[in-house]
């Protein structure tokens, strides 16, 4: 493990045709940080996560993981949880996790036999217990509540033992009460597994509650003649202590905006 930052971004920009989504993005994140990412809809937060996952590549600049350029495709060191569609509806909880292990199988063995299968099963048992789905292993996602489905999605991501966990509004569709439970679960896993976490959220209280660092994405350069010419970038990058009761005054206005903004984020 290098002594440098876990993740670093240097002058990263992402454009789609003439439209600039992100620009001038610079960031160093230490291992074990819990970065929460907030900002208005469509300002590139999810795009940034997808770049961290290698599902998108930066148009300019570069992103490094442990001092080396990011691999060209998703690898086992990074896991992601989306707001929805992460779990496979036609598979039981157990089979969802078995499929998530296809990754290793296809790369290492082709197929798992005997003892490795037994080990896989033990690992799945372990993960199910840890995530609180032990009693639901033979159920289908449709039989689970929204919170349970997201637990399953997290379990899927964790099976790869990622060092970096990416969360794209994972609790956006959940009730507030369930959300609090999920926060506890997530913080427990973060501490136990020593992961570096990036979490996009529209809930500013959530961002302050969970994060050790908050990144605010915003579009600050505007050209009225060419609305797509400039993209968003990181406008605030604040360390947080968990004792923070809420957003500092300079972010209060933004908090209001972010709290009420809904809909898909780019």
């Amino acid at each position, binding site marked *: 493990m290098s002594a440098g930052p876990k993740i670093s971004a240097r002058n990263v920009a992402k454009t789609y045709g003439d439209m600039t989504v992100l620009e001038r993005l610079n960031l160093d994140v230490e291992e074990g940080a819990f970065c929460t990412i907030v900002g208005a809809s469509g300002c590139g937060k999810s795009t940034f996560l997808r770049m961290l996952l290698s599902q998108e590549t930066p148009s300019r600049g570069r992103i490094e993981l442990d001092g080396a350029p990011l691999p060209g495709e998703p690898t086992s060191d990074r896991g992601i949880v989306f707001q929805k569609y*992460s779990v496979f509806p036609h598979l039981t909880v157990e089979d969802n996790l078995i499929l998530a292990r296809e990754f290793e199988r*296809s790369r290492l063995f082709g197929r798992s036999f005997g003892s490795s299968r037994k080990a896989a099963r033990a690992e799945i048992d372990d993960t199910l217990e840890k995530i609180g789905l032990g009693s639901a292993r033979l159920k289908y996602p449709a039989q689970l509540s929204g919170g349970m489905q997201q637990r399953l999605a997290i379990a899927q991501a964790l099976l790869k033992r990622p060092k970096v966990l990416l969360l794209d509004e994972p609790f956006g569709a959940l009730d507030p009460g369930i959300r609090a439970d999920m926060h506890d679960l997530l913080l427990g896993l973060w501490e136990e597994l020593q992961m570096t976490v990036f979490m996009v959220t529209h809930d500013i209280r959530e961002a302050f509650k969970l994060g050790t660092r908050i990144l605010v994405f915003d579009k600050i350069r505007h050209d009225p003649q060419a609305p797509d010419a400039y993209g968003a970038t990181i406008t605030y990058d604040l360390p947080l202590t968990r004792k923070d009761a809420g957003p500092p005054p300079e972010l209060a206005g933004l908090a209001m905006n972010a709290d009420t903004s809904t809909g898909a984020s780019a």
Partner: protein
Amino acid sequence: MEFRFFEIYRSSEYLLLLAKGAGVSASLAIGGGLVGFLLATLLAVSRYAEVPVLGRISAAYVEFIRNTPLIVQLFFVAFGLPLLLGYSWPFWAHALLALTLNFSAYFAEILRAGFSSIPSGQLEAGAALGIRKATIFRKVVFPQAVAAMYPSLNSQFIFLFLTTGVIAEIGVTDLTHAGLYIDSRTFRSFEVFTALTVIYIVMALSFKAVLNAIYRSAFKWRTVR
């Protein structure tokens, strides 16, 4: 006018003929359906995956079959192709080939729609887990697409089953053939075609019941709540 159901069907000869015909119709429909489904899967996959050349060929094939009458396809397979390729099969084999080709085009179009109906988020979720594309298709897209399109495949199959009557035209002793034969002997058209209608209805409903039972057990995840 007097009806003579009893007089006609008292004869075990005619009853046997109808039963055999029903068996032939059912077997050819099931055979054509199964092989047609396999062929349809290949056709639909090559289009969905945009395989070069093969995808185009499959698109052209599907259009060709869906825009020509079954009876013409049947005659082509039974009388046209044998002259060209010099094969001579039993009638039922010609019928099976023609039905398979016909079924496959209709099924392929339904499957292709099913593949595209799977939300892209499912593909992304698979890719994010690092699963290979072919595996994502096999384990995520295909089963969900078949489940989503099952009702369409189901009713398409019933519809195609009901059109298999035309194979009587090339001498296959199917149910329609049996009916036509009995009619030609007895001239009791009303009684004969009433019986035929009833048998076809019972068979179609039976197919439907079996297919629905398969759906409930194979795609439990769509029915559990």
